[in-house]
């Protein structure tokens, strides 16, 4: 038990990163990013917990009762705001990118590649049967 929360945090980050690396849909990818972020919540609150302590609100209990770490909770609150803002921004970007590019697949929706004199070669160099730039624009 004494290491479980930290292991869960590490697992969540790893699994979220795996999701981002293999995702074929930007909306799914944003969800995976949220999983990475929940790793930080779990880590921070896990580090701030103490057995047998009350919540750091001295309303029903008199001040002086052992309570868990309020600083970690304040940090996680900020973190949750960060998470909400990032999700909103990313979803907006995704929706707009879909309107422009007609796809949610990262493989099809790539930033401009003005690869210099070898711009043409670059497209040829990519294998894995990706739709070429021209073909996608036309569709």
């Amino acid at each position, binding site marked *: 038990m004494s290491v479980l929360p930290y292991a869960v945090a590490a697992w969540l980050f790893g699994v979220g990163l795996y999701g981002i690396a293999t995702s074929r849909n930007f909306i799914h990818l944003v969800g995976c990013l949220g999983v990475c972020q929940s790793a930080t919540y779990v880590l921070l609150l896990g580090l701030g917990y103490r057995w047998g302590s009350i919540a750091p609100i001295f309303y029903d209990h008199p001040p002086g009762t052992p309570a868990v770490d309020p600083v970690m909770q304040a940090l996680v609150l900020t973190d949750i705001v960060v998470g909400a803002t990032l999700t909103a921004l990313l979803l907006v*970007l995704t929706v707009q990118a879909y309107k422009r590019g007609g796809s949610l697949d990262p493989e099809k929706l790539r930033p401009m590649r003005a690869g*210099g004199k070898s711009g043409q070669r670059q497209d040829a160099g990519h294998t894995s049967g990706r739709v070429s730039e021209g073909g996608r624009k036309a569709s």
Partner: protein
Amino acid sequence: MTLAPAVLLPLPVAIPLVFCAALLATAHLLPGRAPDVLALLAALAVAVLSAVIAVHAADKPLVYWFGGWEPHDGVHLGIGFSVDAASGWIAAFIGLLYALTFVFAWGFFDRTHGHFHILMLLFLAAMVGFCFTRDMFNLFVWFEVMSVAAFALTAYHLAESSLSGAINFTVVNSLAGFLMLGGIGLIYAQTGTLDFDSIAAAVARGGRDPVVAGAFCLVAAALMIKGAIVPFQFWLADAHAVAPSPVSVIFSGSMVSLGLFGLAKVSAVVFGGSDQVQGALPMLLIGLGSVTALLGGWMALLQRHLKRMLAFSTISHAGIMLTGLGALSIGGTGGMLVYVVGHGLVKGALFMIAGILLATQASIDEIALRGLGRGIWPAGIAMALAALLLCGLPVGALDQGTRLVQGALSAQGHGVALAATAIGAALTGAAVLRAAGRIFLGLGPDPGDEAGAPSEDEREKANRPLWLMLAPCCVLLAVDMALPAGPIAHALPRAVSAFMHRPEGGPLAEGPGWLPWASVAAALAGAGYGLFRNRLPAFVVQPVRATQSVPTRALEILHSGLIGDYAAWLAVGVAVIAAVLALV
């Protein structure tokens, strides 16, 4: 004087915040030019206040405790700002850069009810807060505010490429934020405090501790992602190439180097007492920095999209800054700080020129623009001058920074890194010189069938007179060349010793005087080769072309623009840092 100068410390952060909240609240009531004027005023106020703070901090860092929570018995309850001269001057430089950017962008963003200015002012406030703070979590907050403002600004054009560039940027930098927060959690759990100095004291007491090393690994990875160090550099080219030019000025001029500035502060101050971290830093920073300098320079040479070229050049220069940091000496860090300012001024000017080309010629493609710049030749002169400064022309702040970094590297016998800094600067200089020659002089072969640019049609609004766009650009270059080398060299050792919390050393060593000239010569040769390749005899061209093709192709495949690849490289980068830390 009744007021202590420390009272000024919250103002450079609070003023842009107040301006931006007021702008948002009253945006629909304000006349058209009001956001421009207010934003410019706020940026100037930040620059002036920061400079005043920096002057007052020359003897001893100024400290300010928010909410009046001054530490009692060595326990820090509140958040503090602590400004040494170096941090103050960096903030003043950032304020100046913003002020000139607002002039450059005058009227450019008029249809948005001041939203552009709101985001930029937030960006400014976050950067100043990032420079001033002495609290680990507050550092993270400003880091995130900076990121969020930057994400929105990147996609401003709403073109397909700028949106996917912004997504890559957002995802990678969000991951950076999570890593940083994880690191902060670890160090807080281990040391029981968030204040830089108390953490440093606890770290120094603790001896070798895997938790401290782990925390450093996460925080350093986050700051290196911001600083675009290999293998975290991929997002930068995607984002900087597609952001509106005024935003790119800020990105390349200050955001990237602030990541490294933060790394310098954190590794010198917070983790200064950990032998494990200090032992791992030289190898890590100098190794990664050298690779970054070379890779960025090489990639810059391959680009024909001007802003993408400049973005890769920023990566290369970030690598050079990192090698300076890796020397872990007063000279190396001091050189890096001067380099941050010099590079920001020159690179800002170059992005402004790219913006001028986008606005007046409606293109950003080097080949398509061939010879089209003749009508705006003053911009050409500025571009050539900036390119020469970039590769090491021995005038001004950028050169002084380069010499100090190279001096620190050669004093410690890092020959390879020394060569990497010179070659990286030469490569980026060659790329920009080649583009300047082609665009403004019409040099180089006439584009054939391959002229069709793979980039999409780009342009920026041409609603400003040329002089209005060119003036801030020239001011940036003039400031870079006019910064007095003597006083800087005189004040630097003391400022850096305060910055690093280290005793002052002797005068700072400078690198060999011929090295910048060698970079300039190499850059001229490289640009000449790029432009006059067709006229050179085949026995010169063939071997060069042969050696070029394989690494070029490999690198281009690596810079795939796929977010999945970037995530994988991010994991590799963190693993590299962790491995180096574990092996020391």
